[in-house]
């Protein structure tokens, strides 16, 4: 059941360049006592856009949460942005951005309050937050609306804005295209391409192969807690 390394990793090793952004080796991660990751190997070079593809429950979300330093790796090794997560699990948190299934927002706060809170929590300013909302195309009329009354797509834009304002080096996106309308998906693709162009790395999970595949440089299949 050992899986060969994906081809790009070999070519990476031959050419001296920056450390890979993500490097999981036989990583095991538990949710409760369930091994959500069962010896997962994954390598993502910096600047890459990688799509994790797989059915529900394959472990895609856990890969993202492991890379964010939110779920510990109990066996194997995990390095993200040069940080050894088995030694310093939280060392990478401030440098990554995660847009998960749940929005990671406060439903009772307004769009602006959420965006400003998370920007300030990362040491940024009010105007950084407003710029990010602007960049994500969140209409001004929505600014004073409580997040819980937004549609799924609008909420996703706010989550992206909260992440974007922090300028993370590694973007971890769970089903980023779901819930978005066609024009928003185009915007998102453009955003991801621009982010990768600016040196950020994007790791996203999706079971929607048709769409997310377009922007991804490389697709990795995940099933049964391992990459295949």
């Amino acid at each position: 059941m050992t899986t060969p390394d994906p081809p790009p990793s070999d070519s990476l090793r031959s050419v001296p360049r920056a450390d890979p952004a993500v490097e999981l080796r036989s990583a095991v991660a538990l949710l409760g006592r369930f091994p959500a990751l069962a010896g997962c190997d994954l390598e993502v070079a910096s600047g890459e856009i990688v799509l994790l593809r797989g059915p529900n429950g394959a472990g895609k979300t856990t890969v993202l949460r492991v890379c964010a330093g939110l779920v510990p790796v109990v066996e194997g090794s995990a390095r993200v942005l040069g940080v050894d997560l088995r030694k310093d699990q939280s060392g990478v948190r401030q440098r990554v951005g995660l847009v998960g299934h749940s929005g990671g927002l406060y439903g009772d706060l307004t769009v602006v309050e959420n965006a400003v809170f998370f920007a300030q929590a990362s040491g940024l300013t009010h105007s950084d937050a407003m710029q990010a909302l602007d960049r994500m195309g969140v209409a001004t009329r929505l600014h004073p609306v409580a997040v819980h009354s937004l549609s799924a797509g609008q909420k996703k834009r706010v989550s992206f804005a909260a992440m974007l304002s922090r300028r993370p080096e590694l973007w971890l996106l769970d089903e980023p295209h779901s819930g978005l309308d066609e024009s928003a998906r185009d915007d998102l693709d453009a955003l991801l391409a621009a982010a990768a162009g600016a040196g950020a790395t994007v790791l996203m999970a999706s079971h929607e192969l048709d769409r997310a595949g377009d922007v991804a440089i490389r697709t990795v299949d995940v099933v049964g807690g391992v990459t295949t």
Partner: protein
Amino acid sequence: MTTTFAPKIIGTSSPATRILGVLSIIGLIALVVFGLVISPADFELGETIRILYMHVPTVSVAYLAFIITGVGSVIYLWKRSEFWDLLAASAAEIGVLFFGLTIFNGMMWGKITWGVFWRWEPRLVTTTVLFITYIGYLVVRSIPTDTRTRGTVSAVIGIMAIVNIPITHKAVDWWRGLHQSSTIFATVDPDMRGTQLFSAYLGLTVFLVIFAWLLIHRFRVAWLSERARGIGLDEAIAARRAEGSFS
């Protein structure tokens, strides 16, 4: 520090625990002889002094256990070593057992002395509140999570709880208008003489030996069950990986 298995010995015993086990049994027999037969009834306490030969050792051992839990919790959060996590948990379980017995013995003593099982006597109240505190600790440990979260969460409770012991003592003492300082051993009557005093200290010694014996065994059980869980994990991982081969 690694005691490897001698082939003849099964389960969690080792030469050291065998000696402790034999000492425990001899000690308990001696305690029965001294506590129930040889030593006389007390001038003030009457026959009820014999309950103190059980009461004082169990409560002392329980507090000792909780101190070990507290210290183990601090060291676990600092060093993150499995040893201290499991030692803390093992000690807490034994502490809860002995605390339960302390409350029971206290109630028996109360029934004779006051005619009722329960009175709002400071020691009984404090013991009961702390008993429930540590039941919380054990409940949290029984919730399935990964080892690290379980260790962290229970260590935090172990530390919070031990800080609470002196505060609860003071609060309950003052609440009952008991303003003089009292220690765990205050129930060992300083007026006790001869075989009474001897029986009291014999009880303490015997229960400390039993505690050491139980703690070693319990720790080893905890250690083994972590290893068994590791084997279970390997199987779970294999099963998880097999999910992929169907599709």
